[in-house]
Every structure is written in C-alpha cells, then in structure tokens.
C-alpha cells in the first residue's frame, strides 16, 4: 500500500507537487493522467526517490521511504521502474540487462539468473532476442526488455513513467499488452500514461493531475463518463477531439 501524506515538492521556486494526499491500495492498477507539466512524472519519481520531496511523507507498506536513514538501494530493489526512454544498458545483451541486478543484489548464481531472465524474456515475447544488444532492438522491443529487467528483481510494485510515449505508434500495442498481462496477474502498478484506452480497460482507478495537484480520483468508468472537475472535463474533451476546439 502506498500513502502520500501532505507531500510537497519544489523545483527551485516552482511548486511541482502541492499537498498530495493519496492512498493507493495493494494490487491495484492506478493510472495517473493529466496535461504535460502537471506533475505526474514527478509524482511517480518521488515513489522511488529519484526525486526528493521537501515536505510530507510517502509510506510504502508503512515505511517512510524518504526518511533520512532509509537504505535507498534496499527499498529500490523492491520497486520496478520503467522509463519513457527505456534506459537499457547498451553494452549488455538483453539477457545480461536482466541478470545484472539479480546476480549482484539477490545473490542469484549465474545459471539461476539466466534461467529467470529467459523466463521473463519469454513472458514479454522476446526470448529469441535474448542475445541481441539494445541498439539492435526496436523501441517496443527495448521497452519490453526494460520491463523484463525490472521484473527480474521480483518487485511487488511496478512504476511506469510514460512507457509508450517515446514509441512509434505501431509499437505501443505490444508494450501495453505486456503491461495488461502484468495487471491481470495482480501486480500493483502505478502508470503515468496518455493511453486512455489502457486506462479505461486496465486501471482500477484514475488520478487526474493538473498544476501539481490531484484534482480527481475515480474509477475509470466514472472518470471517463462523468468527470467532475472542469479541468478534467476540458482535458478529456481535448484529447478526444484535438481539432474541434
């Protein structure tokens, strides 16, 4: 379970997150959406301390992850993070991308790490590319390897920061399909995305953010059919018919 308690963050004078107060239950898929610059990426990056916060607390399973003494490497190893730009390690094969952290951090023997990595690559449909290097893979394939790499640490929580935004349109589907599979298996997920179809179909709840605040939280059917906040109504109408305004 993730709890935000009065979380505030500034970039210099810019107030990026304003009094975030949110509880996200275990096993749920939460989609965070909103216009660019609304703070959604910042929000998700505070969850594994890629961004520091200036006030408030973020609790994951009761642990205050921004507490000064917290072992950041230890708790990060329990949170999978998938980036917009994939960030695969280009000097390592797809397989080695997936075995690096488990071998170093979970103490797996090379053979075990390899077997697990192959399983995961199979799961994202890329077992046949295990020995390919990232530059040889398409964007969609790279992102699927990146998901497998994150899963290799067997995290109970996965964070996705606009995982399909850097992809060519025809590759979005394959990545969303993998994410859908994860959701079906009961993974707790927080997903920042513009893919409203994914949100509608997979999310348990949608958070709508603007200007550093969460303006609306609702089940997807509720959010898409009866948005309450005027800003959310405008956002939804903008993304539905970009040319009508």
């Amino acid at each position, binding site marked *: 379970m993730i709890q935000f308690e009065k979380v505030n963050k500034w970039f210099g004078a810019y107030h990026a997150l304003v009094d975030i107060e949110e509880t996200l239950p275990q096993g749920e898929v939460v989609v965070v959406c909103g216009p660019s610059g609304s703070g959604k990426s910042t929000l998700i990056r505070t969850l594994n301390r890629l961004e520091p916060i200036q006030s408030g607390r973020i609790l994951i399973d009761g642990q205050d992850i921004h507490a000064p003494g917290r072992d950041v490497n230890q708790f990060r190893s329990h949170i999978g993070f998938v980036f917009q*730009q994939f960030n695969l390690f280009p000097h390592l094969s797809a397989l080695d991308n997936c075995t690096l952290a488990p071998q*170093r*951090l979970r103490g797996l023997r090379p053979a075990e790490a390899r077997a697990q990595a192959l399983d995961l690559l199979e799961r994202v449909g890329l077992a046949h590319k295990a*020995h390919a290097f990232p530059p040889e893979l398409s964007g969609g394939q790279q992102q699927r390897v990146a998901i497998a790499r994150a899963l290799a640490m067997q995290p109970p929580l996965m964070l996705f920061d606009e995982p399909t935004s850097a992809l060519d349109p025809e590759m979005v589907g394959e990545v969303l399909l993998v994410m859908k599979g994860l959701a079906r298996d009961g993974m707790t997920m927080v997903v920042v995305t513009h893919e409203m179809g994914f949100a509608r179909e997979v999310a348990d709840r949608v958070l709508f953010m603007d200007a550093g605040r969460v303006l609306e939280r609702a089940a997807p059917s509720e959010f898409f059919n009866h948005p309450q906040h005027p800003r959310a109504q405008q956002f939804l109408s903008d993304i539905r018919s970009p040319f009508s305004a």
Partner: protein
Amino acid sequence: MLELIDTYWLYFLVGQYPKGPLGGLALTVALAAAGLLLALPLGLLFGLARVSPVRALRWPVTALVFVVRGTPLLMVVFWAYFFLPSLTGHKTDQFTTMLIALVVFDAAYLAEIVRAGIQSLPRGQMEASRSLGLSYLRSMRLVLLPQALRAMLPSLVNQFVSTIKETSLGYIIGLNEVAFIASQINTQVFTKPTQIYATLGLTYFLMCFGLSRLAYALERRLSRRSRPSAISEESASSSAALAPVSP
C-alpha cells in the same frame, strides 16, 4: 652512419648499463610504462572525484586539474625537482622525480577525459541502474564506466602517446633517458647531429605509432564485441555488411 650505429647502439639502448645506471631507450620505455600504469588508475579516481556528488572529493581534485592544466609540464617537473626534496627532507632521484611529475600531470588530463566520458552518457543510465537498487559505486563500475571507457579510448590513447613524448623532458633534470643520451652522443661525435637526432625522432615515432596501431586494433575488437549477436543471429552476409569500417 653505420659506424655511428655500430659504436653507440648499446649506449643508445641502455645507457651505461651494466657498468653504470640504466638509461637510454630502455629507461624511456620504463618511465613511460610506469607513468601510464600509475597515471591511469589515478586519473580514473580523479575523474570519479570530478563527477562525485561529494564536494569534499570534487573540489580539491577540480582545483588540481585546473592548476595542472594551466601549467606547462616543465613547471611540474621543476616543482617535483626543487620543491619535493624540501617537502620530504631527502633528495629524490631523477627517475622518481620525473615519474611523479608525469603521473600527476597525466592523471589530471586523464581525469578530464574520464569526466567527459561519464558525463557524455545519458542521465537515464545512472537512474536506471539506481532504480534497480544498485549503489552509486556499483552503477559506476558495472553500468557507466564500461560504456564511458569504450567511448574514451581514442582520447586515452592520445594521452598515452603524449606521455611517451613527455618523458623527453627528463632531459632538463639530467635524467639519462633516450633524448639525453642522444645529446650525449652528439656531443661526443660532434659532426653528425642530423643523423643522431633523426634516429632519435624515428625512435619516438615508432613507439607512438606502435601504440596508436595497437589502440586501433583494440578499438575495433571492442566495437565488434559490442554487437556479437549481429554475427551470431543474422545471416553471414548481413554480418559482413555490419562489420566495422576501419578508420
């Protein structure tokens, strides 16, 4: 010319050794090799300090780098020669003096190469590695440095070639390296400076050229190794098309 070589080749190669101290080309090679071997790890540490988030590491090394970069090597040699003994209380021999000057000088330059190599990588590499739970130092060692070193290789070789040539400044403090020996020979023979200094020049050229070629070979091997699957998975014809173009 043949007579010249016949008389002085041993002196040119090893100085007065074994009757006197080792000198000549052998000493130059030893100095360059020791300089490289010591400067590389030191330069790596300095480079890591230059990008370190810890100010206490970053600032002193940054200061050192700027001082050294704004100073000719000759000054550093003088400092080592005149200043070091007054600091330690006893006289340092010329080889060690020159070695210290070379290592400090080259480590500062290598630090900048390392820093640039690390900073040229996308920020996401460190973030991705840290997100998996790897520590800062492990991320450096396992993720950033392997990529950075590959990119740095040409600049590193450049610096190594410089080091070989810089050993000739040992001349100024009376170190009997190969340039010093050549000038000694010239003093004794007196009539053939062109031949003597041409031989010296050719000697430096061969060492530097050899090192450059070695580095190119290494570079090619590394770039091949970074995409072995192109060879193992695709057809033979396409792997030939992917083969790196030699410079």
